[in-house]
Structure formats: structure tokens, C-alpha cells
């Protein structure tokens, strides 16, 4: 049954497709029993001309079998309160889709693609979430939809790993975050013709390029380059600058109670 649901994408109705740019889904308040809260925010449906009294809902999936629908107000007045999700089986990736249904009807007139909620620990450029990764500790995913963000995914089999990396453990933080940034930047400079999406507002490439432009003086010259090695070297320099600004070196020494030898 789950496979059928994933395969079916068509609809006989004249449905409008809602872009990821026009809403946010944030995961809040994970509890020890595996329940969590979701908040749907920044809903902007002005481009779609839906009736103002049409009803908004979000379908939440976890894994391939858990599914529920949450009503979240109307197009005119979306509800802002977070809601709790309590699935019987707590395993699997969480994905959400928002839907528009006319008042007193059941057929959708607008749906989004499925998207992963952004964790409240979001670092801005990355979507951070957890799922069962088997024996892998973490993974980095480039989205196929440019309006979504690259994802840093932690293994939910390791208790509190997400908080450990994001907030507490500087060694893990300094290892994982620059690696993700490097992988993402390398994707931007090398993928396809190179630098795809950096001028397009609302794409993750545009967001990341702003990050680079704020730190590197030569963003315009690297745009002209067709030399793969030069591009990779440029990415490495950017990550070095970022790491320098974050003072990773000093913070790690402090966390290990090692005093730097001033003679070196």
C-alpha cells in the first residue's frame, strides 16, 4: 500500500502546485517518547488565487505507513499554533504536504510537494533533521528541489546526537558543519554548468552564495573560472575562512584542556 501511495502523483482535478517557497514547516519540542510538534508558518498563498474561505490542511507522514491530516485554518486565516504528532510507529523520515480544499468539499484544489520539516535547531543554511541511518552517524543531502535547503541528517538511533553536535560538542560541530558547507559549495561551483541558481531568489544556491559573497573578495572572478581545481581550491579557502571566524582551533584546544604552545 505504501508503495502505491508514493507512486501516485496525478490528480483528475485542476490542482495548483504550491511551491516550497510559500510555507515553512518547523519541527519543535521532540519528547523522549518520540512525539514531536510541528509548526506551519510563513504561509503565503497570494500567487494562487485560492478562495479565501478554502480550508488549509497539512498531511504528515512518518516512514511509509504513518499518516495523518491536521486542519490548519483557512487561506484567509491560517492557524499559527504548533500541533503535536503522536504516531504509533516512531520510525522513519517525517515529510509534510500542505493542501487546500474548498469549503464544504473534499477534493484538493492545491497541494505542495512533500517536504521535510526544518528542525528548530536549524542553522539557517541547512535543514537539520534526524532519521534512522543504520550505522551511519550523519549524512548530507542536496535537495532535488532548489527551493528546499540542503539537509544535515543525524542518526536518530544515537540519543541526543543532534543537540550534541549543534549545541554542545565543539569537536563534532567543527568536524561536521564545515564538511557540509564544503560539500554544498562544491556542488554549487561544479554541478552542471556551474553556479546554477545563485541568482535566483528563493533557491538554496542563492542563500549559500550570499554566505560566500560575505566572506570572499573574489566571488566575481571565480564565476569566470572554468578550472575545476581552481574552483575546489576556492571552496577550501572559503571553508578555512569560515572555520577561522568560528575559532574552531582555539575552541577545540580549550575543550580538550590543551594549552597552545606560544613558541610555535
Amino acid at each position: 500500500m505504501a508503495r502505491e501511495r508514493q507512486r501516485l502523483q496525478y490528480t483528475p482535478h485542476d490542482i495548483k502546485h504550491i511551491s516550497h517557497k510559500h510555507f515553512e514547516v518547523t519541527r519543535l519540542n521532540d519528547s523522549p517518547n518520540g512525539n514531536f510538534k510541528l509548526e506551519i508558518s510563513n504561509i503565503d498563498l497570494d500567487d494562487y488565487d485560492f478562495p479565501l474561505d478554502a480550508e488549509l490542511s497539512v498531511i504528515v507522514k512518518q516512514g511509509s505507513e504513518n499518516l495523518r491530516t491536521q486542519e490548519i485554518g483557512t487561506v484567509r486565516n491560517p492557524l499559527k499554533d504548533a500541533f503535536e504528532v503522536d504516531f504509533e510507529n516512531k520510525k522513519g523520515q517525517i515529510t509534510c504536504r500542505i493542501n487546500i480544499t474548498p469549503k464544504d468539499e473534499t477534493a484538493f484544489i492545491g497541494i505542495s510537494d512533500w517536504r521535510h520539516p526544518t528542525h528548530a535547531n536549524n542553522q539557517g543554511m541547512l535543514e537539520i533533521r534526524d532519521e534512522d541511518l543504520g550505522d551511519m552517524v550523519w549524512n548530507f543531502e542536496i535537495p532535488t528541489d532548489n527551493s528546499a535547503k540542503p539537509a544535515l541528517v543525524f542518526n536518530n538511533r544515537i540519543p541526543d546526537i543532534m543537540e550534541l553536535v549543534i549545541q554542545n560538542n565543539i569537536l563534532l560541530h567543527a568536524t561536521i558543519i564545515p564538511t557540509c558547507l564544503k560539500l554544498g559549495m562544491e556542488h554549487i561551483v561544479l554541478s552542471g554548468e556551474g553556479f546554477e541558481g545563485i541568482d535566483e531568489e528563493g533557491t538554496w544556491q542563492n542563500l549559500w552564495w550570499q554566505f560566500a559573497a560575505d566572506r570572499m573578495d573574489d566571488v566575481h572572478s571565480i564565476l569566470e573560472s572554468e578550472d575545476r581545481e581552481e574552483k575546489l581550491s576556492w571552496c577550501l579557502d572559503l571553508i578555512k575562512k569560515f572555520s577561522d571566524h568560528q575559532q574552531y582551533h582555539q575552541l577545540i584546544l580549550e575543550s580538550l584542556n590543551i594549552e597552545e604552545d606560544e613558541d610555535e
Partner: protein
Amino acid sequence: MSNIRKLNEKGLRHFADFLLEHYQKEINDSQLPTFLLNDDEFSEELSVPKKIKEVSCNNRFELGKHYYNYLHQDLTEEELEGQGLWSWLALFHFELLFARTFLRVEYYIPLGAPKKGVINQKFLNSPKNFSYENVNWQNPLEYRHAIKGYFHFYKTFGDNAVILCSSSGITYHGDVAEQIGGILWLKQYKIILDLFKSLYWDADSQSFKKANGKGALTTSSTSKGYLGGLRRARAVIDALMDIHNFEKFKKTRHLIELMGDEFEAQS
């Protein structure tokens, strides 16, 4: 009369060993490890003491409903989600629930997700003919527990949950509970159980039937009886969920119309 208790880890392990040793064997009363029920070494009181009440019931629904109404306000998260209380209750009611031989451990000890639960690993590592490793045990199997399953069915579906019972009696899990209870997405939408009830439930025989009087539980999609049946209805609903908001269906009539002639003929 004494109080309801919950098996501790030692009690659970002992009960699990008993079930493993007697897999597919007949069990007589003298073999039952009933000493686990009241021995402090193997079991303990609930956090809110509850007297055992006399209960007479004809099916698992009535048993689950009884315990839901009696216990649900007083159980801790650990008691509700753990294995100890439910295993204790299954052992307490073993004679009521036990068929000639027992086949599946989860009828007596609720098995959640494979890596969860005190003794689940024991079953994963059990002898080959009892192994759960090859049965795609990804979703919780707690719906198969004779008491916990119906405790939750009643919580979710209210009195409609009676349609999930096996027509063969209280000792059987039944195909309807299996075909509906094991599907997590399906249980989230109350309208779907209402739909199945209106399409298939025959109160006289307490079973699922199609309009032509034949059984509605054919599972093979290549079988003639599949069309218009429960499995086929599940597949059609699954597709319709891409197009319709199932929270907004208040009555089954409109949904049956959308499902087409195949199902209108059953109603």
C-alpha cells in the same frame, strides 16, 4: 480479590521463555507459569493500585473495552507503552484467550518496534521456526495483542471496533483485525472504519461479507473475490487520499460514490 499487576523484566523473560518452549504445543493448566502473577520477584503492583474486576466477555473487543474504561485514566506512560501490564493481563486471562495451541507470541506479550521493548531481542534471536527476523517486522505488532490491541482499537474507533473481532471467537485474532489493525495510516481516519462497516459488516453473522453473501477478506489481487472486497477497498482509498481530504468526509455515502460501482454494489 487481589490487584492487577505488571510483570517485571524477570517475569517477562520467564513468560517469554515459557511461550518459546511451548511454541505450537498444547499447554495444560498445570504448566502455566501463573506463579508470576503474584510473586514480587516477577511482578509488581501498578502505580495506582487497581482491583481485579470480574469480567465476562464474548470477544476481545469487550475485554479491551473493559480494560480501557477501567484503566486508561490511571496508567503511567511506562505502563501503557511497556510490556509488563499487558503480558500480566494476558497470562491472567490465558485460559480465556488460549486456543488449542498458540502460534504467535505477540498475542500474549505486546511486541512494539523490533529494537524497542525489554525482551524483543529474545524473539529476534529465537530458534529459526520462531524467528521474527524474516517477517518484515517493521511496524509495531501490538495490535495483535489480545488485550492491548483492543484497548487501543476501542480508544480509536469506539464501539465500531467490535467489527474487528474474529467470528471464530475470543481465542482468535482474526483476518479483519489483521487487515485493518496492522495498517497505521488507515487507523488515523475514522471515516474509513465507518466505511468498512457500512460496506461489509454483517451483524447477524458478526463477520465481513460482500453484498452477494461471500466473504470480503480475499487477499490475493488475482483472485476473483478480490474485487469489491476489503483489500481492494484499501487500495482504492489509498489512491483517493492523494486527491481528497479524508478528514472532511463526514458520511460514508459520498466516499462510496467516489470509489465507484464496484463498491456501490456492496452498500
